[in-house]
């Protein structure tokens, strides 16, 4: 037992900002201060408030320090750990004006959250199986194996109402049930989808980095439930820390007898392997993912047959997403009723969102299903920075759509999101302010799907490209009102004729922005004007001669040499030469350059 614990966040975001060296520095300074017997340094998983990293939390008081630098460590040790005085200037402060001192659990960022899937993230050392076990780790597997029949496990998950957290929200228990027939007589597989490809979503990464054992344990429970003996985790190669922690966790579980033969003395055996993805978004689709595990081009194939009948290596297979699996162990331990008491009528439990974009507190938040967008954006997220107005939030990545400001009070769950033309997706929640052009955002997502379309079926391969061309026409100032009809027609065709989920949902960002921000499309077409000032071809830069001091900063910054004028005299922009990069605006200290 130690008097204090210093938890240095070692999630990927903080890790990239030197958190490893900060942890080492803490160890050095604690030793110098003679506190080695009293204070332990832990390298924890993601604390969720990635925007203010590197983050350091001191327990048991739960004091949270943010933006910690290497040179701050000595002060933190001398003041907080030695004298027991908080270092005010480094305290995480969500409201700079009040300068109030708060502990982790009291901050608005955490107060509204309910952590089930993230229960261990940032709390335990992900490199230690002992810490996981101390938090009821592997107790769910023990309960399932020794006190429940496989059918009871399936029924419990079914009764909990848990739905897949990776996108479409298919009931997890039902998926398991479909694959549970003929146990013991056929080879079956359990797969985990950790190919988190949605831009702006990183909850799976955080679970794998911060609590890898929960994924392993849940996969073992799933394998027991359907009668499988082998599992694969398909994880993005872009997540090196997650791969490292998961690899270590699998080794630890093996040596503890929690993976391998005759687990807990029963006749249940389970082996788990890691397969690294190689950068293909389509591999998040279940049939494509399985083809990729087989070592081939990750192309999807038609369903049926569904993977529960014929999946990986032609055997019955279930595939669950990381966050879905992170909910399994608490459900087994606490029962289906405990889980179904949380959330809304048809969406049970909690959902993790990766809050990003134009919002004050970026990071991971886990809230009960049915929490309103307003609560997430304004209370947990701390609102929009720089006094700008909330315009829309995007969910579901390239398969989803946007929620406009008029619907900010909508309770977020699977069915509500579908009814307003977007989807839950994996949980990326990107906030946009008045400076975001919705036509441009639609284009952004379509460019993504055009590039990531695997090319197997024509509606997706060619259709998305044609759709993008229509959007480009509009943002280039060549659009016509007929193009809007053509977009809707083509989008409907792509949705109904594509082979897999990627193509079937690819037009959603376009349709959704067209539904809620049609005016903006019309403005681009009729007035050749981008209201948000984003679409380059429609912009003009001018210098206000009254405000310009002739400091020459803009002229020096201009890569196209389009700004002329002599020092101390007002400058002008040669619009023929201007490439509309916006570099001049950033350099001007007198607010003399405008974009319209």
């Amino acid at each position: 037992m130690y008097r204090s614990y210093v938890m240095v966040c070692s999630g990927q975001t903080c890790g990239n900002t030197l958190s490893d060296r900060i942890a080492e520095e803490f160890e050095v300074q604690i030793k110098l201060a003679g506190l080695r017997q009293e204070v332990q340094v832990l390298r924890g998983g993601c604390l969720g408030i990635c925007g203010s990293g590197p983050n350091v939390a001191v327990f048991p008081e739960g004091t949270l320090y943010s933006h910690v630098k290497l040179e701050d460590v000595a002060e933190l040790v001398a003041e907080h750990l030695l004298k027991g005085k908080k270092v005010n200037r480094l305290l995480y402060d969500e409201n700079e004006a009040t300068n109030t001192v708060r502990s982790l659990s009291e901050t608005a960022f955490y107060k509204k959250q309910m952590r089930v899937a993230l229960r261990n993230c940032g709390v335990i050392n992900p490199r230690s199986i002992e810490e996981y076990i101390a938090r009821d780790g592997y107790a769910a597997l023990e309960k399932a194996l020794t006190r429940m029949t496989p059918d009871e496990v399936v029924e419990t998950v079914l009764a909990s109402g848990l739905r897949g957290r990776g996108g479409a929200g298919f009931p997890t228990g039902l998926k398991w049930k479909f694959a549970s027939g003929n146990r013991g007589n056929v080879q079956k597989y359990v797969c985990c989808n950790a190919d988190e490809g949605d831009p702006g979503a990183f909850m799976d990464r955080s679970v794998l980095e911060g609590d890898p054992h929960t994924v392993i344990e849940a996969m073992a429970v799933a394998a027991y439930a359907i009668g499988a003996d082998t599992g694969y985790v398909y994880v993005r190669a872009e997540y090196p820390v997650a791969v490292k922690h998961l690899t270590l966790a699998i080794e630890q579980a093996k040596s503890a007898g929690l993976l391998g033969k005759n687990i807990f003395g029963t006749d249940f055996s389970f082996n788990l392997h890691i397969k690294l993805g190689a950068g293909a978004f389509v591999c998040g689709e279940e049939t494509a993912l399985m083809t990729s595990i087989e070592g081939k081009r990750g192309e999807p194939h038609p369903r049926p047959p569904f993977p529960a009948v014929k999946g990986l290596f032609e055997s019955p297979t279930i595939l669950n997403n990381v966050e879905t699996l992170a909910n399994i162990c608490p459900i087994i331990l606490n029962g289906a009723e405990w889980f179904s008491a949380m959330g809304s009528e048809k969406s049970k439990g909690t959902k993790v969102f990766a809050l990003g974009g134009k919002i004050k507190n970026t990071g991971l938040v886990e809230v009960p299903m049915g929490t309103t967008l307003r609560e997430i954006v304004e209370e947990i997220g701390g609102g929009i920075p720089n006094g700008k107005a909330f315009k829309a939030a995007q969910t579901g990545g390239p398969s989803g759509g946007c929620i406009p400001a008029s619907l900010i009070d909508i309770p977020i769950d699977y069915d509500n999101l579908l009814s307003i033309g977007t989807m839950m997706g994996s949980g990326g929640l990107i906030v946009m302010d008045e400076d975001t052009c919705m036509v441009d955002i639609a284009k952004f997502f379509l460019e993504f799907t055009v590039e990531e379309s695997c090319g197997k079926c024509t509606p997706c391969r060619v259709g998305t490209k044609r759709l993008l061309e229509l959007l480009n026409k509009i943002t280039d100032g060549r659009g016509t009102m007929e193009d809007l009809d053509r977009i809707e027609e083509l989008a409907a065709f792509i949705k109904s004729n594509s082979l897999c989920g990627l193509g079937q949902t690819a037009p959603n960002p376009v349709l959704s922005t067209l539904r809620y921000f049609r005016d903006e499309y019309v403005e681009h077409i009729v007035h050749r004007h981008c209201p948000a000032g984003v679409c380059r071809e429609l912009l003009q830069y001018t210098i206000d001669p009254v405000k310009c001091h002739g400091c020459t900063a803009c002229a020096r910054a201009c890569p196209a040499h389009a700004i002329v004028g002599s020092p101390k005299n007002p400058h002008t922009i040669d619009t023929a030469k201007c490439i509309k990069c916006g570099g001049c605006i950033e350099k001007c200290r007198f607010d003399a350059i405008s974009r319209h």
Partner: protein
Amino acid sequence: MNKQSPECCGGGETKEQQLLAWIQAHREEKGLALPALQKAQELYGYLPVEAQRIVARALDKPLTEIYGIATFYSQFSLVPKGRNCISVCLGTACYVKGGGRIYELLQQKLGIAGGGCTEDGRFSLDACRCLGCCGMAPVIMINDDVYGNLTGDELDAILSKYE
């Protein structure tokens, strides 16, 4: 067997020998083609046709199938990369916070287009999809180092760290 070749690196083994040894050691695993290409890229830095041919022969698969895999996944490159690989994140969070502008600035500074490599082989530049560091958007990654909260002004200082 001790023949030293200019290809040689570490332990006196050529890349080909190392690749074949790796494949041999993992022969029992199912779906080996993709991991074998990942290993080949790790050894060669990219996937020259020789490396693809080695994998094809060792796994007894047609070269077309191996080439099909190599060209399907964005992780694989069929052309040599620079000594330092710059990836500019253009995930949603980075995009709305100006990642596109950082990408343009880097193209100007390096004088190459996206996907290109500088003549001296010092840098190659690519856009990538979400590094998952959305909290520090906009983000770039050079080799394994990530730089976040970029404004554009710091790029020269960052680039100067890499030779």
